[in-house]
């Protein structure tokens, strides 16, 4: 705190001095008609095409859009960090405090980077140099831009680390990035960004790789620092919840263009572009009643090589009219809000109203205790970690049931053991102890033949559809492979026919069978993964983060597909995910895990309406929802601290180190999973049984 005081006084005086030159009303950064071209093997594309926006000192602007919309490219173009050989800025100006950054000589531009504009990147794991100490990496801009001496830079680096909430800062300076957790590394990145008191920080998906509780910590920190030090923030993200909680203004981008622009609360409350409306509707939401089916945006974002001639969103737009064949301009609908849509004024006047489907479920489908298909009892999985018999307790004494035809959601942060549970069920990893009974059969004791029969009934869909499909096999071969392995079809033509059927089932055209994985989009690849899982007509599918890597609009399509298949084929799902809103949408019952143990088990509505365990409550509080009004009212119930290492889990209740309710007793005793009310279990000694 003390460190911060001296620092903030220093900044205020600097800001005050410069305020004379730059009155507060002058914009900090003005991007005017920026256009970037990329040279690709198949032709020239424009991932950023004619975008303009302005940032005022101290404000937070969010740039939102799905992958490939140009949001990162435009920011890299501002910093002139695009690869020189393939990318070229072909038009526009970037005015920063009156200077045109695009026209500066490289040596001058270098002085802007890290000194006046800082950038924070998505992957804290790879964004720091692995062979240099944290200290050196923080001190580097100080020494280069401010010409500080070694000792002065070291002192300032220590201050910066304290400022971003890293304890024991002096010792940390000598550490290397691999010795820190992901959240810590992102704090270090922020410290580097703050080092020279920049006026603007561009944060490119700063928390996408982090867990939800850590994400909340990092974003609160950035917002807080930006407010206290009067730093403007450009927040690039795909997460609408983050935008709602932290942004003052928002830019929605689609296919290289800004489609909607304006004050964040206005855009969320009254979106005036069908794409924004579609985005907001296709996210599963924690703050509204669950819908039976997610609304989706049909189709895929356009290929930048073959853009539609008119409005770029028109091919996917449900409200297109003949006029949409001509390109609309970015027009002001009301003061402070712009939309690139011919129908924006019709939306504004109410002439065209887009009615949301009813949010309530038609009928409660929750059948409380269906007969279990899968039953897990006291499952444990320990990993040896080399030295002197040390073990990591990835899964520790986990018991739950999955009923026939039911979807059980398994949620938790990284390292909580949820994926390991899935892998042990499928015998992709051998459990250390416990029982796994599937359909009356003991999975752990099954020998080769039995296991093969079991695997026909249990299938898996993985997270990363790119790396889990063999790049050298055609889609048809990938889907047909399980059929061949289990000799299910009489001959090749029968096999081919079956593949066609499966493709149709997951909503892919038949000609896809001859394509290769790299020719497909992310969503299409995930559909292939689903078709492969369905090939053996299983009764049970483990979906391991099956929709996590997909863009919002595609994610909604895949979730709807999974739900439709469940209805049609009577499937049972174990849905492993970290996104609480997605789990709420798809699951009937939810299991919450933390550090290898179950914290809470309940039916979906009971869990989300009345969460009992302090960890579940913290998780729900940390997940931002896409509604600025709700976000403003919500207390920021931040979970403090880092996830403890599974190598040395805390004694007693594993959550006690971060729990606001923890007492001495929590340290000594492992809390049993108790039934608080019918069907609602929690492992916490502080909770009363009703």
């Amino acid at each position, binding site marked *: 705190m003390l460190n911060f005081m001296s620092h903030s006084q220093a900044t205020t005086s600097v800001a005050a001095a410069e305020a004379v030159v730059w009155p507060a009303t002058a914009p900090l950064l003005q991007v005017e008609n920026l256009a970037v071209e990329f040279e690709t093997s198949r032709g020239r594309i424009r991932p950023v095409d004619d975008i303009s926006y302005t940032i005022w000192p101290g404000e937070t602007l969010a740039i939102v859009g799905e992958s490939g919309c140009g949001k990162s490219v435009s920011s890299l173009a501002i910093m002139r960090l695009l690869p020189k050989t393939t990318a070229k800025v072909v038009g526009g100006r970037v005015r920063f405090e009156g200077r045109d950054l695009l026209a500066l000589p490289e040596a001058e531009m270098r002085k802007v980077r*890290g000194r006046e504009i800082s*950038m924070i990147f998505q992957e804290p794991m*790879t964004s*720091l*140099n692995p*062979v240099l100490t944290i200290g050196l990496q923080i001190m580097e801009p100080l020494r280069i831009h401010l010409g500080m001496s070694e000792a002065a830079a070291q002192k300032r680096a220590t201050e910066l680390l304290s400022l971003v909430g890293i304890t024991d800062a002096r010792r940390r300076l000598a550490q290397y990035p691999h010795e820190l957790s992901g959240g810590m590394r992102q704090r270090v990145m922020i410290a580097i960004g703050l080092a020279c008191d920049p006026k603007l920080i561009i944060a490119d998906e700063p928390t996408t790789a982090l867990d939800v509780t850590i994400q909340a910590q990092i974003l609160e920190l950035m917002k807080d620092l930006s407010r206290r030090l009067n730093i403007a923030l450009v927040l690039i993200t795909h997460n609408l919840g983050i935008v709602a909680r932290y942004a003052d203004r928002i830019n929605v981008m689609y296919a290289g263009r800004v489609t909607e622009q304006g004050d964040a609360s206005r855009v969320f409350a009254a979106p005036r572009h069908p794409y924004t409306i579609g985005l907001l509707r296709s996210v599963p939401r924690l703050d509204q009643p669950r819908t039976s089916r997610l609304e989706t945006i049909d189709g895929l974002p356009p290929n930048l090589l073959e853009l539609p001639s008119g409005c770029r969103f028109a091919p996917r737009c449900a409200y297109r009219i003949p006029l949409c064949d001509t390109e609309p301009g970015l027009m002001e609908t009301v003061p402070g809000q712009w939309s690139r849509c011919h129908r924006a004024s019709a939306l504004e006047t109410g002439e065209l109203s887009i009615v949301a489907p009813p949010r309530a479920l038609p009928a409660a489908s929750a059948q409380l205790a269906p007969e279990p298909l899968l039953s897990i009892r006291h499952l444990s999985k320990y990993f040896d970690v080399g030295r002197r018999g040390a073990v990591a307790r990835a899964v520790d004494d986990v018991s739950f049931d999955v009923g026939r035809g039911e979807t059980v959601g398994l949620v938790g942060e990284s390292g909580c053991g949820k994926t390991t549970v899935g892998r042990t069920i499928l015998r992709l990893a051998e459990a250390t102890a416990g029982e796994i009974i599937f359909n009356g059969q003991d999975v752990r004791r099954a020998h080769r033949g039995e296991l093969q029969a079991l695997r026909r009934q249990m299938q898996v869909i993985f997270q990363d559809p790119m790396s889990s499909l063999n790049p050298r096999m055609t889609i048809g071969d990938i889907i047909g492979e399980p059929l061949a392995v289990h000799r299910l079809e009489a001959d090749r033509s029968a096999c081919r026919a079956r593949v066609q059927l499966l493709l149709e089932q997951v909503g892919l055209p038949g000609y896809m069978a001859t394509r290769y994985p790299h020719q497909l989009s992310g969503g299409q690849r995930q559909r292939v993964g689903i078709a492969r899982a369905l090939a053996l007509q299983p009764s049970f599918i483990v979906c391991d983060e099956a929709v996590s890597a997909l863009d919002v609009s595609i994610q909604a399509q895949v979730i709807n597909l999974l739900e439709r298949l469940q209805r049609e084929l009577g499937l049972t799902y174990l849905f492993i995910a970290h996104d609480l809103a997605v789990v709420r949408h798809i699951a009937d019952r939810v299991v919450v895990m933390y550090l290898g143990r179950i914290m809470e088990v309940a039916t979906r509505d009971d869990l989300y309406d009345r969460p009992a365990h302090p960890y579940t409550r913290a998780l729900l509080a940390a997940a931002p929802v896409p509604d600025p009004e709700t976000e403003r009212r919500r207390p920021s119930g931040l979970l403090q601290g880092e996830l403890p290492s599974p190598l040395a889990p805390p004694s007693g209740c594993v959550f006690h180190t971060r729990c606001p309710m923890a007492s001495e007793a929590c340290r000594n005793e492992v809390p049993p999973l108790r039934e608080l009310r019918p069907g609602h279990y929690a492992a916490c000694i502080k909770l009363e049984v009703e």
Partner: protein
Amino acid sequence: MWAYTSKRLFLMLPTLLVVATVIFFLLRVVPGDIVELKLLGDGGMVSQATIDQERARLGLDQPLLVQYFNWMVGLVTFDFGTSMWTGRAVSEEIAGRLMLSIELAILASIVGLALGIVLGTLSALLRNTWVDHLIRLLTLGGMALPSFWIGMLIILFLLYIFDWLPPMTYTPFFTDPWANLSQLIWPALAVGYRYAAVVARLVRSSIMEVMNEDYIRTARAKGVYERLIIVRHAMRNALLPVVTLSGLEFAFLIGGLVVTEQVFNLNGIGKLFIDAIDNSDYVLIQSVVMLMAFIFIVVNLIVDLLYAALDPRIRY
């Protein structure tokens, strides 16, 4: 780290045992008999009795397993025996020539690494320019052309252009560095060329890969000078695989030396080795092979320790 080092040194023993066994039996399978070579080689006429007597003197009349056993006992007690040809102690034969070969190996490594790193970095940073194309052509040559042939070219070049030949007798470095280097730099170049070529190709691809890493982008975003980005951020990461490679390349280096010493008529271990093979001098061949295996293992241990020192993520 000490635990790791001692474990590695301990594991060296079984490796050396396997090498010793394989080389022993391989040599007995290879045709050629030292006694016949020695006594009948130049068309001499010697009675069978003399031959048998010589055999007995060298211990070659004993059963194979007994000979093997004696060889093992000798190894364990560091008694490598005497050369079957000259009758001098093997340790003496080697000691007289080891310095030259080690110096040559070090020189060739320096030439290889220095040239390789510089050329590889240039090639990566000036990708697809004429500099890059030229360097890639040179490195291709280094890998395709055998070092003895390069050696011959160097000699011919020196002789025809400068009408000068390197000195023929070995002067230890500390006696007269200039005379020493003017003799040894040429074979070091011939052997080091290949080494440099392999290193340059690795460095080129490694730097190109590292320059695309996120942390390089971070360094740029911090406003670090391009020169500092390359030296501090990129090279330190890009040279890590070179460390590993230099250990493995050492085997090629030794192989290259054996031939190159012939070309430059240097009286080193390589020449000793070739002569020993010519003479089917079992004892000497075995001992030289053991020495090379030992050096190779030690060099690779040093390389692994060096790697750990350079990469903070690796700790033994």
